[in-house]
């Protein structure tokens, strides 16, 4: 059976986290902060950490910007990292 088409206003992202890889669909108008929140919940990450999201070398900041404003496309691989710890 053919899978139902994904709405045009959504993209699926693969997000590497400290508790493994997390794949989810987001509205293109969702914010980077929404990715962080979804990953915290789905992968049981520690809320006391401060997180950054990277696409390759690019930090997706500020986190209140929308996904579409960073030109993310379906299937993009992102990396979620807690900040700090090199001391």
């Amino acid at each position: 059976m053919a899978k139902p088409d994904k709405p045009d206003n959504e993209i699926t992202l693969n997000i590497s986290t400290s508790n493994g890889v997390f794949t989810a669909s987001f509205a293109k108008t969702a914010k980077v902060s929404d990715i962080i929140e979804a990953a915290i919940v789905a992968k049981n990450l520690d809320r006391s950490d401060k997180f950054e999201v990277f696409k390759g070398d690019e930090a997706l900041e500020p986190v209140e910007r929308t996904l579409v404003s960073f030109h993310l496309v379906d299937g993009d691989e992102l990396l979620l990292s807690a900040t700090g710890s090199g001391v």
Partner: protein
Amino acid sequence: MATATELVVEAELANLLAVAAAEGWQIKALTTTSFLIGFSSGSDWVWVHCQADDYPGLPPAWRWTNAAGDRFDEDDLTPRREGDASTFFHPNGVICAPWNRLSYTSIDSRGPHNDWDIGDWKRNSQLGGGRTLAGMAIRLGLEVRLRFRGFRQAA
């Protein structure tokens, strides 16, 4: 029968392997509690040896190595600290973070920190997400990707 450490490492390594596949890192398993991880930076590969015996009671020991894992912390294997280079690339040659056993002076004389409690390492305020092997590797991988400027000495 597997030890508690081996079970934890096995479970966490599964997550790390998934992240490594997504990020293009190389993982070479050595024993049930040790492995090599390679991070690419341009034409260079930066290799780190992880020894996780007694983990998670103690943090793993992470040290610079080569692709074969048979040389450690030599200048042609150790990233140099330059400009905005990461504080991970410490002048003492150790990866300086609460999740690296070698950061503790009580373990390694090069370890800069005699002010950290290794028995309470997961509650160190500077842990920065390094609660799992994948979390530690993510921090290392990012530092190499963003701030690696070459080794202390050419190979």
